[in-house]
């Protein structure tokens, strides 16, 4: 996951056509507890999100991809590590 490509989340964000502000709002909307500043650090791999934060962020992006006719391309924690 984020370990291999540090800015993986940010790449997905750009593919989804979301500004960082808009993504943070969507993350917040789903119950995300980190600040916009912390979330940016997750995007670039400068901070590692908790498992929960990872999934909230992934889901915020995935809901955007669904709106655009896509599926759920952003992996959740359970997709990348054995539970």
């Amino acid at each position, binding site marked *: 996951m984020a370990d291999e490509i540090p800015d993986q989340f940010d790449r997905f964000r*750009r593919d989804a056509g979301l500004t960082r502000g*808009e993504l943070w709002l969507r993350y*917040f909307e789903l119950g995300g507890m980190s600040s916009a500043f912390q979330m940016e650090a997750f995007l670039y791999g400068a901070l590692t999100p908790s498992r929960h934060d990872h999934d909230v962020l992934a889901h915020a992006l995935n809901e955007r991809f*669904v709106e655009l*006719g896509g599926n759920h391309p952003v992996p959740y924690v359970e997709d990348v590590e054995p539970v």
Partner: protein
Amino acid sequence: MISRDDSPDISLEVVGPTAVITLRGQIDRSAVADLGSLLDQVVANGYSSMVLDLASLHSLADPGTSLIADAARRLADGGRQLSIRSPSTPVQRQLEADGLGGFIRDEEFESMTGKAVGDPLRPVGLSDTSQTILPPLPPAGASALPTDDDVIDAALRLVVELARATVGGADGVSASLLRHGRLTTVAASDQTVLDMDAQQYATGEGPCIDASTQGRRFHAPSLDVEHRWPEFTPRAEALGIRAILSSPLVAWGLPVGSLNIYSHQPAAFAPDDQRLAMKFATEASAILTDAGVTATDDLRSERFQASLRSRELIAQAQGVLMERDGLTEDAAFTELRVRSQQSGQTLRARAEEVTGSTRPSASGWGTAGVVDGSSTGEGDHRG
């Protein structure tokens, strides 16, 4: 105005019939690849002339100059024009080594800089091509500093042209935007497409309207079996249209318009074409967001209130699941998330079901979020 995040040193701007590509700083090998694909797009896209602004370019990695030479040849083949502006001395030597010396023009590009238009861009032909065709004059308005709307319109025109040229099955493309409270076609590839949009505004229904107001994609793979827009559909068929794909344009998270692709053939859009359409819509949305479209305080505040409500609802649903199923808070979120993904609902819609604020779903596999009830069973879901 279209700047690519992955190559901030390369940007593309459209001034009238001219595509202006600006290169800055050091263009390394990976950026050269981006430059190559941008050149391909501009060549494919039918601009009557292309300007390469190198005034701030320090160095250009291989095979940058050969890519430019190749683009110059293809432009010349179509009777079109390349001009290169203000390279530094080392870059100029590179260009000359690839036979591009004749394209360098160092005079001011008056029409690009907002100063008075003296004479139009003077064409500089390939040295071994006997014939060059003058590009059309830029429209008079091109000399003035563009207004925000002009910039947005030009960007959307570019997106429409690119989509028309690259999305398989696309016979016509348009971009609609909410302006002054009503939908307007800002860019269209031809008259039929303009008529199609007009029919939707007239009947108040259609995929363009739904995508523009609901902020999600609407795909009508075959109008023969389409029931969602009973008034509009026969009018579209009368114009020879058989399939429509409308992707939302979104600024600041709010729907502001749509990118509409029309085809004369049913089932015209393969999955790859749909993905490409989505790519163009997201690119256009990023432009609209950057340009501050609809980003008024009222709308932002409205959006923020909605976010708070959604957050509260999800927390309540987590509470219900923790209480009912003995889950931890995080496990309750995962439960909601997995169910929403499986059923194609938004997480918020799933949370509403759990808290009982919408119709209950005994099976736990509710369909409240599935509002795109196309008979073709496509995967457009948004609660």
